[in-house]
């Protein structure tokens, strides 16, 4: 039993080793982390619901190569992102920039929250007023006995 648990633990730990990216890691751990964040944020356009970090499509591995080379050339994250959007459009970013086309997308959660709050406030105030004017009316759902 204990051996089985050990095996399971080892198997789970081996998960990250199955990474798609076969390129060599950066010598500097900070650079490696930057690289991993960047490739997680870029969409693979062939397999659109995967990032280029998750995909083993040819295009994804070539785009990882581009990211790696741009980093080695000393480009900033913003420069690398705009390199990608200049070629593939905002769609390549999993976090699209706030623009005339995307404001609704970004604002939607806030707008929905405000709408919900407004609706809740209206309902609460209305019930409070009804309760003040006619306390018995609140029992209308109750058993009419």
């Amino acid at each position: 039993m204990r051996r089985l648990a050990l095996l399971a633990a080892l198997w789970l730990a081996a998960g990250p080793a199955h990474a798609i990216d076969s390129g060599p890691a950066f010598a500097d751990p900070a650079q490696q982390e930057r690289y991993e964040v960047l490739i997680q944020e870029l969409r693979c356009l062939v397999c659109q619901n995967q990032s280029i970090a998750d995909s083993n499509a040819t295009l994804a591995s070539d785009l990882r190569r581009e990211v790696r080379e741009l980093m080695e050339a000393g480009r900033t994250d913003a420069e690398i992102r705009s390199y990608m959007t200049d070629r593939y459009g905002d769609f390549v970013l999993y976090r699209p920039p706030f623009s005339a086309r995307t404001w609704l997308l970004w604002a939607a959660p806030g707008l929905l929250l405000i709408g919900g709050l407004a609706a809740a406030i209206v309902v609460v105030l209305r019930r409070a007023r009804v309760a003040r004017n006619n306390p018995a009316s609140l029992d209308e759902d109750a058993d009419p006995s």
Partner: protein
Amino acid sequence: MKGALRFLLPAAAFLVLAVFLYIGLFQDPGRIESPLIGKAAPAFSLESLGDPAWKVGSDDFAGKPWLLNVWATWCAGCRDEHDALLAIARENRLPMMGLNSWDDRALALQWLTELGNPYVSVAFDPEGRTAIDWGVYGAPETFLIGADGRVLHKLIGPMTPEIWQRDFLPLLAAGSGP
């Protein structure tokens, strides 16, 4: 009035949602609008597929409109569109350059021998670097570049005579006008 609103509000919300979803039904998420349209065509100079000593580049046809067709032998859509490309080449309206990306030189040459060659020249891009520069994410893709060196149009997917006549010819006529 209040009762009507109570009914109308959810109905309106539903309608808006339904319209969005309905539009979504007919949109192909595989077709991504190219940010290159209207911009200068990315420059390249690559080995010719047939002769490594010969350079094929983006300014070979400078000053006149031309087509760039991205293809590879592993691409099924490229085989589908090949007859349409040959027909376009026979029209002799404008030069077509091939960009052979992510491919094998011998296989690509064999393909052209077997199926016919619609291209004036073919640039060899085995690592897909030029294709990435052009924002290519799947072959076949066909670009129309204007006389001023700007990208006028991009087709993702196989060319057909209908698409050629509907989407490309009008742009070509407009571009070569007064």
